[in-house]
C-alpha cells in the first residue's frame, strides 16, 4: 500500500495533537489553590450550587478564609448537582474524596452508609454551635443517631409561580392551604385562559419530593427511614393518574414539551421559558430562577390534602445543602474551622449568605437575612418561616437509582408508552430489584 496511508497518519498525528491541546486546556481550567503559603494545609472543597450567585458567594467565602489564614490553601471545585454527584462517586470510589464536600439528604444517606463521611458530633457544640438551627435541618442530617453534615441552608418543598400570569388571567392565587384537586383546577384554568402552548403547571410527576407530599396527604411517605418504600402500587397509580389527567386536560405539558426542561438548567424550565405558570421545585432554586426573569415569582405550598379530607401541614424544612467532611481527610479540624467561618463568623456570614439565595438554617442567620436580604430573599424567608411555624418531619434520604425510575416511569406515561397502572407496577418491579 506504500504511501497510501501517510495522510491518514498525519490526520492521526493531528488528532493526537488536538487531544493534547484539549487535555492541557482542561487541566489549566482547574482552579489553582487560593492563597498558597509555606508549610500550609491544602484542602479540596467540592460541592454543588443551585445558581451562579451561590457559586460566586461560595468561592468568595473560601477565598476570604484563606486570606485570613494564609497557611491554609483551598481548591474549590463546585458545579451543578448532577455533575457533582457523578464526580463525587468517581472520586470517592478511588479513595480520593474531597476533604470538604457538599451533601444533601440523599448524598448523606448513601455516603454515610458507605463510610465516606465523617460523623461530626464531636465538633458540636464546640466549635460549631447548632443550638438555634431549624430542627428539621438537624434531624434530616442525622443518620442512625450520628450527624453527618452541618446544614448550610434551610429549604422546603414548594411550588414556584409566575405572579404576572395570575394577574394577567385574573385567576386568584389560591390559599396557601389547598388541595390537589384545587391545584389541578388552577392549572387547567390558567391553561384555558392563556390559550394554546401554555400550561398551568409544569409536570411534577417525576419528582419524588412532590410525590412524597402527595403520599403524606394519603398518610404514607415515599422513602422510609429504613431504606424502603412507604407506599403501594395503588398510591403510585393515583399519582401518575393525577399528572396524566392534567396532561390530557392541557393543565400540564405533554411529554415532548416537558422534556425540553430536562436537566438541571433553570433557564430551560417552562416558567422561565414562558410556557408554564407553576413550577414544582424546592425553595433553594428561587433566587436563581428570579434572576432569570423580570416577572416577580411567588412561592406557594404544595397541596396538603384532598377535597373532602382534612388539610394538615405536611411541609418540612431540611438542609438542601450541607457541609460534610471526608472520613479520610487528615485536616478535619481545618475543614471544621472553614465551616465555622462560613456559618458563625460575621465576615464569613456576610459573604456566604448575602445574595447567594441560601436561607440560613440558624434563627440568628435568618434574622440577619431579614435585615439585609434582597426582596427575593425576603420572599423565600417568609415562606420558610411559614413552614417553620408548623413543621412536619423531614423526608427520608432517597435510595440511589430509585428516584430516577420514578422520573422514567412518569415519562413513559407522558409519551403514552405505558398506562398509569403499568407504570406503577413497573416502578415497583424495578425499584424492588434495586433495593434488594
Amino acid at each position, binding site marked *: 500500500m506504500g504511501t497510501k496511508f501517510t495522510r491518514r497518519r498525519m490526520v492521526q498525528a493531528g488528532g493526537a495533537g488536538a487531544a493534547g491541546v484539549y487535555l492541557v486546556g482542561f487541566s489549566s481550567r482547574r482552579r489553582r489553590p487560593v492563597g498558597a503559603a509555606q508549610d500550609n494545609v491544602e484542602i479540596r472543597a467540592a460541592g454543588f450550587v443551585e445558581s451562579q450567585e451561590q457559586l460566586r458567594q461560595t468561592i468568595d467565602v473560601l477565598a476570604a478564609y484563606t486570606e485570613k489564614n494564609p497557611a491554609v490553601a483551598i481548591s474549590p471545585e463546585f458545579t451543578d448537582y448532577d455533575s457533582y454527584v457523578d464526580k463525587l*462517586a468517581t472520586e470517592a470510589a478511588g479513595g480520593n474524596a474531597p476533604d470538604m464536600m457538599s451533601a444533601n439528604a440523599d448524598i448523606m444517606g448513601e455516603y454515610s452508609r*458507605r463510610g465516606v463521611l465523617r460523623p461530626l458530633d464531636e465538633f458540636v457544640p464546640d466549635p460549631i454551635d447548632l443550638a438555634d438551627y431549624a430542627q428539621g435541618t438537624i434531624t434530616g442530617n442525622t443518620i442512625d443517631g450520628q450527624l453527618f453534615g452541618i446544614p448550610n441552608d434551610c429549604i422546603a418543598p414548594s411550588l414556584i409561580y409566575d405572579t404576572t400570569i395570575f394577574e394577567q388571567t385574573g385567576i386568584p392565587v389560591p390559599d396557601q392551604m389547598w388541595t390537589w384537586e384545587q391545584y389541578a383546577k388552577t392549572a387547567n384554568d390558567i391553561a384555558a385562559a392563556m390559550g394554546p402552548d401554555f400550561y398551568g403547571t409544569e409536570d411534577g410527576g417525576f419528582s419524588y419530593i412532590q410525590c412524597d407530599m402527595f403520599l403524606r396527604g394519603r398518610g404514607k411517605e415515599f422513602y422510609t427511614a429504613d431504606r424502603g418504600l412507604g407506599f403501594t402500587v395503588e398510591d403510585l397509580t393515583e399519582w401518575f393518574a393525577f399528572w396524566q389527567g392534567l396532561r390530557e386536560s392541557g393543565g400540564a405539558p405533554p411529554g415532548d414539551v416537558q422534556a*425540553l426542561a430536562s436537566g438541571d438548567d433553570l433557564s430551560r424550565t417552562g416558567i422561565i421559558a414562558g410556557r408554564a405558570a407553576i413550577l414544582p421545585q424546592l425553595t433553594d432554586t428561587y433566587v436563581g430562577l428570579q434572576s432569570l426573569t423580570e416577572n416577580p415569582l411567588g412561592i406557594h405550598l404544595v397541596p396538603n390534602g384532598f377535597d373532602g379530607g382534612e388539610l394538615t401541614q405536611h411541609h418540612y424544612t431540611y438542609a438542601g445543602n450541607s457541609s460534610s467532611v471526608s472520613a479520610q481527610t487528615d485536616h478535619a479540624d481545618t475543614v471544621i474551622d472553614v465551616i465555622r467561618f462560613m456559618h458563625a463568623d460575621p465576615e464569613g456570614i456576610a459573604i456566604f449568605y448575602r445574595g447567594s439565595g441560601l436561607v440560613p438554617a440558624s434563627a440568628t442567620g435568618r434574622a440577619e437575612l431579614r435585615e439585609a436580604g434582597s426582596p427575593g430573599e425576603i420572599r423565600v424567608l417568609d415562606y420558610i418561616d411559614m413552614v417553620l411555624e408548623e413543621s412536619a418531619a423531614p423526608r427520608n434520604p432517597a435510595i*440511589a437509582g430509585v428516584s430516577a425510575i420514578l422520573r*422514567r416511569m412518569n415519562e413513559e406515561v407522558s*409519551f403514552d408508552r405505558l398506562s398509569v397502572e403499568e407504570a406503577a407496577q413497573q416502578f415497583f418491579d424495578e425499584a424492588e430489584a434495586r433495593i434488594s
Partner: protein
Amino acid sequence: MSRAGVGVEDRPPAVQGERALVPSHPGREASRVQRFFARRGVQQNLAAYVFLIPWLAGFFLLTLGPMLASLYLSFTDFELFTPPEWRGLDNYVRMFTDDRRYFRALRVTFTYVVVSVPLKLLFALALALLLNRGLRGVGLYRSVYYLPSLLGGSVAVAIMWRQVFNRDGLVNQVLNVVGIEGPSWISDPAYALYTLVALAVWQFGAPMVIFLAGLKQIPQDLYDAAAVDGAGKLSRFARITVPLLTPIIFFNLLMQMIGAYQAFTSAFVVSGGTGGPADSTLFYTMYLYEEGFTNFEMGYASAMAWVLLAIIATSSAVAFLSAKYWVHYGDS
C-alpha cells in the same frame, strides 16, 4: 512505490518487477523507519524499546491492568465502596434475562450504528469527491469541512445541537419559513435519536480526509485510459474509483463503526444525562455509565463493558470476513 497497490494485473511487467523489489528482502517491512533500524542491527531495536518504555508502562499500568480488573469485577457484585463479592455469571445472566432497559439500550445503539455509519461514509465520500477536483481555494474548503470533526465529541457542539433542534430552534425556524411546523426534535422520542445521527453525520471530516487521500492515490492514467475506451463519468466512478477505494472504505467503515458503538457525549449532553426522552437516546455506554456511577452497580457495569467489547469484536470480525468479497487490494 507510488504506483503500488493499484491494478497490478493491468500493468506492464516492468511495473510488477518494481514491486517485486520489496518482498525480496525477507523479514523486512516496507516502512522506512524499520528498514533504517534493520540496517543498524538488533541493538537499535533495543533502543526503540527503551523509547517505548513510557508507552509500554502506560499500556500495562493504565490500560491492561484496569481491563483485567474490570474483567474480574464483571463476575462480582461491586457497589463501589464495599469489597466486591464473587457472583459468578450473575451479572451476565441478569443482563440477558432480566433487564428490559438493557435491550432498549442495545436497540438504540444498533439503530444508531446502522443508520449513522453508512450515512456518514456516504457524506464523507461525496464531499471528498467534490473536493478532489481542482477547485480554487480547495485547501480552505477542506479545512472548513474538517472543522466539525475537530470539535468532535465536544460538549459545546452537543449544546449547540440542542439549540439547533429545539422546538423554536434553527431547524424549525427554517421549516416555519416554508410553512411547516416542525416537532420538538430533541424532546420527542420519535426523533431524538435521529438528531444524534445527524450530529454524527455532520462530523464527517475524518473519513472525508482519508477518502481524499485515497482518491489522490488513484492514478490519473487509469481514468485517461478508460476515457479513451469510451467510459463515461459514471462508469469510471463505478469501475475505477469505487473498486480502488474499497480498502479505504473498509478502513473507514471499521473505524466509524467502532466509534459509533462507543458514542456517549452527544447523547449525554443532549438528553441532560438521562438517555431520554423515554430512553430514546439511551446509548449502550450511557446505560453502562448510569449503572456504574449513578446506581453504584460497578460489577454490572463492568460486565456490560465486556459484552460491548464482544459485540464490537464480533461486528469487526463480520466486517473482516465480508471484506474478502468486496474489498479489492491492488496486489491481490
